[in-house]
C-alpha cells in the first residue's frame, strides 16, 4: 500500500536517532550517556513535579468521588497541546512541505501524501500528549482503581484526540499565514500572533493561584466547564470512566469524520499552497545596492540577528525569555502592591526577594539558549565560515555576543524595575547587576561549548535544531545547572553570611567558570571546527 510505503520513508527521514540527535548511537558512548542523563533528568523532573501535584489533586477529588474530573484534565491538556503543535507545525508539514518537488511528480494520490504527512506530524503530538498526561492518568487509576479496559480505551482515544484540533487549527494557521502574507511585515505579524497565543497560555497557567496548597485547584472550574461544553470531552470521560460504548464509538466516529473531511477539503488547497512557493519572482530594485564596511564580529552579529528574526521557530523558542523579562519588568512596576503582598510568604520563609528575582531572571536567561544551537543553524552554510579566514574563536564569540544582547539589557531592565518596586539596597543592586552579567556570559559560553560538541548540521527544517536537537536540550539545562550550583551555595552559606557576600561569591564562581570555558574555546575551537 502506497500510504504505508510513504509512512516508512517519512518515518526514516524524520525520526532516526541521527536525525534527531545529530550523531549515530554507536559512534559516541559519552554523548549517548550525556543525552540519556539529560533526557532522564528533564522528563524525570517534569513527571515527578507534575505527578505530585496531580496525585494530591486526585486524592482530594477521590474523597468527593470526583476523580473523573482528572480525565477532564487529560482531555483538555491533550487538546491544548495538539492545538499548539498544529499551529506551529501545520505549515511546514502540510501546506509548504519541502519535499513537494519530489512527491508531486510521483504517481501518488494527493490525499495519500497529505494523510501520511499528517501522520508524521501526529507522531510528535502523540509523544508529547502521552508524556504530559501520564502523571494525570496514573493519579486517576491510582485513586479510582485500575481497570485494564479503561486503560486500553484511554490509549485508543488518545490516538484520536488530536484529530479535531488538527483539522480546525491547521485551517486557522493557513488563514493567519495567508492574511499576514498580504502585508510587507507579514512575518512580524505572524510572530506577534504566535506570541499572543503563547502568552494567552501563560495567562491561563497563571490562573493557578500559588497561594493555594495545590495550584491545580484553581483550574478545576475551567476544566469542568471546558469538558462540559465540548461534546467529545464528555464522551472521552464517559468512555473511560463509565466504559460507555456509545460514547466511545461517538468519539472515534466524530474524530475520524472530521479528519477525513479535512483531508478531502484541503486536498486541492495543499497542492496550491505548495505550488505557490515554486514561482520565484525576483523583484528588481529601483535603488542601487550600497556597500558598507563593518568589522567581522559585527558582520557575524548582523547575520545572527537576521537569522533570528527570519526564523519563526527560532525567535518563538529563544525569544520568549527576552520578551518575558521585558513584560515582567513592566508588570512588576504596575502590580507592585499586590506583588509585595504575595511575596510576604517568601520573606516569612527567610528567602530573600533578591534571590527569588535572580532565580526567575536566571531561568528566563536560560530559555534564550541561542549559543547552544546557532552553530548548528549554520547547517549547509557552514562551509562559508570554514573556508573564510576567520578564527573559530571569533565566530563563537560573535554568536555569544548576539545572545548577550538578547539577555543582559532585558534582564537588567527587569532588575531596575524590581529595584524601584522593592527598594533593594544600592550594594545589592550593584551585586545583582554583576551576577546577571556574569551569569548570562557563563551560560552563553557554556552553550557555545555544548554546540561545538553537539552540532547538528543536517536538518530539513530549523525546528529540528531549535526544539529537538541535543544542543537545545543541553543548552536549556546548562542554565538550570549553573543556577542549581548557586542554589546549593546559597542554601549552605546564607545562614552564616550576608546576602551581599553570597552574591559576591556567586559572581566569582560565574567568572571562574567563564574564564575556564573561554580558555577552552580559545584553545580548542579551531581544531573542533576542522573536525566538524
Amino acid at each position, binding site marked *: 500500500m502506497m500510504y504505508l510505503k510513504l509512512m516508512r520513508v517519512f518515518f526514516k527521514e524524520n525520526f532516526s536517532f541521527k536525525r534527531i540527535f545529530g550523531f549515530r548511537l554507536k559512534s559516541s558512548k559519552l554523548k549517548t550517556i550525556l543525552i540519556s542523563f539529560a533526557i532522564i533528568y528533564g522528563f524525570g523532573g517534569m513527571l515527578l513535579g507534575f505527578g505530585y501535584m496531580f496525585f494530591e489533586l486526585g486524592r482530594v477529588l477521590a474523597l468527593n468521588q470526583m476523580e473523573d474530573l482528572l480525565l477532564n484534565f487529560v482531555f483538555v491538556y491533550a487538546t491544548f497541546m495538539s492545538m499548539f503543535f498544529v499551529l506551529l507545525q501545520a505549515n511546514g508539514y502540510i501546506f509548504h512541505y519541502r519535499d513537494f518537488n519530489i512527491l508531486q511528480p510521483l504517481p501518488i494520490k494527493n490525499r495519500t501524501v497529505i494523510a501520511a504527512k499528517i501522520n508524521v506530524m501526529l507522531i510528535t503530538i502523540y509523544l508529547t500528549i502521552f508524556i504530559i498526561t501520564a502523571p494525570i492518568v496514573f493519579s486517576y487509576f491510582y485513586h479510582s482503581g485500575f481497570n485494564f479496559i479503561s486503560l486500553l480505551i484511554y490509549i485508543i482515544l488518545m490516538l484520536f484526540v488530536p484529530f479535531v484540533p488538527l483539522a480546525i487549527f491547521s485551517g486557522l494557521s493557513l488563514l493567519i499565514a495567508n492574511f499576514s502574507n498580504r502585508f510587507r511585515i507579514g512575518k512580524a505579524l505572524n510572530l506577534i500572533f504566535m506570541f499572543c497565543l503563547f502568552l494567552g497560555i501563560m495567562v491561563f497557567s497563571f490562573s493557578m493561584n500559588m497561594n493555594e496548597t495545590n495550584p491545580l485547584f484553581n483550574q478545576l472550574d475551567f476544566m469542568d466547564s471546558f469538558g462540559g461544553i465540548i461534546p467529545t470531552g464528555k464522551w472521552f470521560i464517559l468512555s473511560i470512566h463509565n466504559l460507555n460504548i456509545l460514547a466511545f464509538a461517538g468519539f472515534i466516529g466524530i474524530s475520524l469524520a472530521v479528519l477525513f473531511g479535512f483531508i478531502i477539503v484541503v486536498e486541492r488547497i495543499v497542492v496550491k499552497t505548495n505550488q505557490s512557493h515554486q514561482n520565484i519572482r525576483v523583484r528588481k530594485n529601483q535603488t542601487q*545596492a550600497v556597500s558598507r564596511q563593518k568589522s567581522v564580529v559585527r558582520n557575524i552579529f548582523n547575520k545572527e540577528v537576521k537569522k533570528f528574526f527570519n526564523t519563526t521557530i527560532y525567535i518563538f523558542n529563544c525569544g520568549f525569555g527576552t520578551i518575558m523579562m521585558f513584560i515582567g519588568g513592566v508588570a512588576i512596576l504596575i502590580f507592585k502592591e499586590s506583588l509585595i503582598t504575595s511575596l510576604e510568604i517568601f520573606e516569612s520563609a527567610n528567602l530573600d526577594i533578591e534571590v527569588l528575582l535572580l532565580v526567575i531572571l536566571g531561568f528566563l536567561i536560560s530559555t534564550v539558549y541561542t549559543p547552544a544551537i546557532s552553530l548548528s543553524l549554520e547547517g549547509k552554510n557552514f562551509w562559508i565560515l570554514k573556508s573564510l579566514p576567520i578564527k573559530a574563536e571569533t565566530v563563537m564569540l560573535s554568536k555569544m555576543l548576539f545572545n548577550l544582547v538578547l539577555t543582559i539589557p532585558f534582564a537588567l531592565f527587569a532588575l531596575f524595575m524590581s529595584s524601584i518596586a522593592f527598594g533593594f539596597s544600592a550594594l545589592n543592586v550593584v551585586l545583582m547587576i554583576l551576577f546577571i552579567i556574569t551569569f548570562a556570559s557563563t551560560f552563553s559560553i557554556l552553550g557555545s561549548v555544548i554546540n561545538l560538541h553537539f552540532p547538528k548540521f543536517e536538518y530539513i527544517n530549523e525546528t529540528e535544531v531549535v526544539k529537538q536537537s541535543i544542543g537545545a536540550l543541553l543548552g536549556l539545562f546548562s542554565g538550570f545547572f549553573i543556577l542549581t550550583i548557586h542554589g546549593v551555595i546559597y542554601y549552605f552559606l546564607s545562614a552564616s553570611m550576608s546576602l551581599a557576600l553570597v552574591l559576591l561569591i556567586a559572581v566569582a564562581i560565574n567568572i571562574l567558570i567563564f574564564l575556564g570555558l573561554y580558555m577552552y574555546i580559545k584553545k580548542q575551537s579551531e581544531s573542533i571546527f576542522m573536525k566538524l
Partner: protein
Amino acid sequence: MIKIKDVSKSYDQKKMAIDKINLEILPGDIYGFIGHNGAGKTTLLKSIAGILNFDEGEITIFDKSIKKESLEAKKLIAYIPDNPDVYEALSGIEYLDFIADVFGVELEKRKSLIQKYGQMFEIEDVLNNPISSYSHGMKQKVVIMSALIHSPKAMLLDEPFVGLDPKASYLLKEVFHELVEQGALIFFSTHVLEVAEKLCNKVAIIKNGKIVANGKTSEVIKDKSLENIFIELLSDK
C-alpha cells in the same frame, strides 16, 4: 602555487576517499579536475580550502600550510562549492559586504568590483533583495562574485558551470582568463569534458581517490579527445 603532497583522507578509516594525491598548480594555470561520481574531487577541493581535515600529507598555498597557517592560507584563496548554499536571510549586497569585510577589501575597491561583476552577471538590480528570493543561478552568481571580490590568488571551484546560463558560463570563462593573466591560478572540478579540454592548460583525472592521469592537457589527451581518455582510464582495472 598550490602544492599537494601525499594527501590522503578516509571518512570511515576503511576506504580512502583520496589516496596519496600529489599535484602542483602553478600561477597562470587553469587546472581541470575530472573524475567519476564519488572519485574524491570534492574531498580534495574541500581539503585544499580548509573545510575538511585530511589524515596525511601536506597542502600549501603559496607556501602557507592550510593546516598550520590556515588563516594566512585562506586569505589567498576563494572557494566556490558545487551547491550555492549561502545565508538566505541576507541580501545579496550584505553577503558580498560580509565577504569583503572578512578579506579587508577597501570600500572603494569593493564598490567598483561589485558594480563591475554585478553588471557582468546581470544581477546588480537584485542585490538589495534577500538571497532567499533568488533562483539557483542567481545564487551561484552571488557566490562567484563573492569569490572575485577579494581578488584571490587561487580560486577553487567545484562544478562551477552547473546552474549557470550559457552567457554566465561564457563570462566565467572570461573571468578565469582575466585572473590567470594577473597571476592567479584556477583549480576546478567538472564533468563537462569539452569545457575542460578547451579551457584548461592542465588536467588531472582522479579515479577511486587516486590520480590516474595528470599534466598538460595536450600531453594527457595526445591525439585523442579527453572524453576518450577519460572513458579508457575509467574502464582500466
